[in-house]
C-alpha cells in the first residue's frame, strides 16, 4: 500500500473547518498515510481536557450540520489517533499565550511542539491548512 505523509495545520475555531480537518486526518490516517496535525491559534481551545465545547458555525453549512448526526470532530481526531496512528501536536506558542501546560489538554494529544520542528517533520509531504 502506497503511503505518504500528510501534515495538517489547524488554526480555525469554526465548526466546518474543524470538521473538514478532522475528516482529512481520520480518513488519511486509516488509509495508510502518516498523519501529523498541528493545533494552534483558535483551534487549541477545543482540545482542553474534557472539553465538549461546540464550535460555532461559520456559514449555512455549519448550521445545517448541527442538526444532523455528523460524527463530532473531536471523535474523528481521536479515531485518527486510535485507528490510524495519527499524531496531534499542540502548538507550544499557543499554549504559552493561553498560559496552559500539557496537563490541561486532552490526554490523546502528543507532546507540545514548536513550528520549527513541525515544519521540519512535514518536509517532503503534503501540507493542508484549515
Amino acid at each position, binding site marked *: 500500500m502506497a503511503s505518504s505523509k500528510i501534515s495538517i495545520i489547524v488554526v480555525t475555531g469554526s465548526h466546518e473547518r474543524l470538521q473538514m480537518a478532522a475528516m482529512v486526518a*481520520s480518513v488519511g490516517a*486509516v*488509509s495508510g498515510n502518516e498523519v501529523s496535525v498541528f493545533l494552534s491559534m483558535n483551534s487549541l481551545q477545543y482540545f482542553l481536557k474534557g472539553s465538549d465545547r461546540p464550535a460555532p458555525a461559520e456559514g449555512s453549512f455549519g448550521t445545517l450540520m448541527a442538526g*444532523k*448526526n455528523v*460524527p463530532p470532530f473531536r471523535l*474523528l481526531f481521536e*479515531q485518527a489517533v486510535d*485507528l490510524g496512528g495519527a499524531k496531534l501536536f499542540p502548538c507550544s506558542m499557543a499554549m504559552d499565550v493561553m498560559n496552559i501546560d500539557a496537563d490541561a489538554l486532552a490526554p490523546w494529544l502528543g507532546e507540545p511542539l514548536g513550528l520549527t520542528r513541525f515544519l521540519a517533520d512535514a518536509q517532503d509531504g503534503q501540507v493542508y491548512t484549515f
Partner: protein
Amino acid sequence: MPEKKVIDARGSFCPGPLMELIGWIKLANIGDELEVLSTDKGSAADIPEWIRKVGHELIGVTEDAGVWHVTVKKTK
C-alpha cells in the same frame, strides 16, 4: 470458524460509517465478514474505495429501501 458481523451505522454521515467499520475490522479475525448498514450515499461509494486502498476483499454493495449494505472480508 469465520464470523459475520453486522454494523448498524444508519443515520450517521461520512466518515462515521467508515470509522465504525474500521473499529470493528481491527477486532475481527482474518476471514471474518463485516456488513455495514448505512443511509449515507457517500459512504456507500467511499467504503469500497477504502477497502480497495488497504487491500481487504469487497464482497458486495447492495441497496434496499434507502439502506446500503457494504460487505467486506478481512484478508489481512
